[in-house]
């Protein structure tokens, strides 16, 4: 039962993701300079700086009471939608909204419930962005990461171990974008010239998984 995912753990996940984004802000923007428009770090940092307080111990005025995962992630997701903009705003926003909807009106979850919610989030990203793995997007991180998480849990591993496996898979997924030819998002305009550059969104998604491992593992 120490493997339970609690509301506090989920809050910590959001905070840790915000911290990692801020830490990697210039790095993400540099990656986006090479094959995009040099704003991914700025976009994500602006959004997570706005969203993180919602997940803190003392949420800012205007935050609705947070007693459930759905209440937490609906507000985090909406905040991202309304502060990030660009491609990543709707995508990360939708991700958290769907995670919240999947977890629902409860405050403690099993690892399998949590993993299923992440998959629902990823399905939201697919529904919104219509990309597939291999298109050189965040999905190239998320899909292998969530596959690894499921497999590791199914193999009877602890949540901590499973999230460590997911992080490894996320990082590999992120790295796998470098040789890819972009078929979605701004990088797709470059055609062949997108090859050889790591996708910024897959990089921020790897931070999302790694934050989960730190906060919940």
């Amino acid at each position, binding site marked *: 039962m120490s493997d339970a995912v609690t509301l506090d753990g989920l809050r910590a996940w959001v905070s840790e993701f915000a911290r990692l984004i801020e830490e990697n802000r210039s790095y993400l923007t540099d990656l986006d300079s090479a094959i995009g428009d*040099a*704003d991914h770090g700025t976009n994500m940092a602006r959004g997570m700086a706005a969203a993180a307080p919602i997940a803190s111990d003392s949420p800012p005025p205007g935050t609705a009471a947070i007693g459930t995962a759905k209440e937490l992630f609906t507000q985090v997701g909406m905040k991202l*939608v309304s502060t990030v903009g660009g*491609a990543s705003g709707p995508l990360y926003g939708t991700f958290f909204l769907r995670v919240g909807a999947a977890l629902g009106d409860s405050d403690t979850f099993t690892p399998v419930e949590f993993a299923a919610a992440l998959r629902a989030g990823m399905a939201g990203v697919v529904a919104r962005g219509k990309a597939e793995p291999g298109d050189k997007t965040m999905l190239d991180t998320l899909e292998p990461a969530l596959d690894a998480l499921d497999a590791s849990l199914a193999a009877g591993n602890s949540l901590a171990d499973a999230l460590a496996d997911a992080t490894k898979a996320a990082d590999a997924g992120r790295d796998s974008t470098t040789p890819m030819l972009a078929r979605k998002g701004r990088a797709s*305009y470059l055609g062949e010239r997108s090859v050889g550059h790591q996708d910024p969104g897959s990089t921020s998604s790897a931070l999302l998984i790694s934050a989960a491992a730190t906060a919940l593992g």
Partner: protein
Amino acid sequence: MKKLINDPADVVKEALLGIAAAHPELRVDHANKIIYRGDTPKKGKVGLISGGGSGHEPLHGGFVGFGMLDAACAGEIFTSPVPDQMLEATKHVDGGAGVLHIVKNYTGDVMNFEMAAEMAAAETGLDVIAVVTDDDVAVQDSTWTAGRRGVGVTVLLEKIAGAAAEQGLSLKEVADVARHVNENGRSMGMALTSCIVPAAGKPTFDLPDNEMEIGVGIHGEPGRRRVPIAPAKEVAAMLVEPILEDMPLGRGDSIIAFVNGMGGTPLIELYVMYNEVAKILQGRGVTIARSLVGPYITSLEMAGCSVTLLKVDDPTLALWDAPVSTPGLRWGM
């Protein structure tokens, strides 16, 4: 980074303050970063809204006014605005005849406008049609990509659809006019230098002194290929030829020829380019019915230009000629 700004994080906010101060005929909602026509909503008129990342001025805010947009939503630099802005603007400009969303085809813009339309439908039941511009022939068009970018045609479309709305056409009709413009327009751009996104603080791409990027977009995205710098005559051919390959033009065709500055290129060079573009077209027997030369859809301080050719029929030309009064385009009133 050398820019006339204060804190990079405040550029959009402060530019909107400047726009509000310089153009009292507009109304600026600073909290939502929306520029409105002073007299919107106009009862019975289709509302036109557009928006996108900032850094392309005068697009879109400079095209708000009589005969063009009712509202423009300003995103952060090169970052599409968020759905809340478009939702707010949509509700605000509706005069009972519905609202047209003019969206440049970028993943972020399309998704954020889509979410806004979904929210508008859920909240208000308002009639919203989105028209997406995708005129940049530098980008391969295929179902396997994000599709072509919306660039120069957006300026012409906002003018022409704006005139159609002003004349009292229905939402469906205005949307048809807009789609007609998008289908008949093509663009291609190039850069001599990169722009610098203020928050990034350094050039988006490095371009040696003897090279230029052909097929750039308006966000400092690198282009399709990098070639040695060349005389204006050759640059014009590199921009016009791909357009003509995609949309053949010849004797009997009438066009609006638009040579656009990317922000850092002065007017004198744009006129030199226009001369070359006009020569190519005249050589093919194409009639240049109207022209537009200047920085209308820019990419911060990027030096370079783009060419947009819009095939026009008489009704479209009449809409182009109709009165317009915005900070960026004005005639007939």
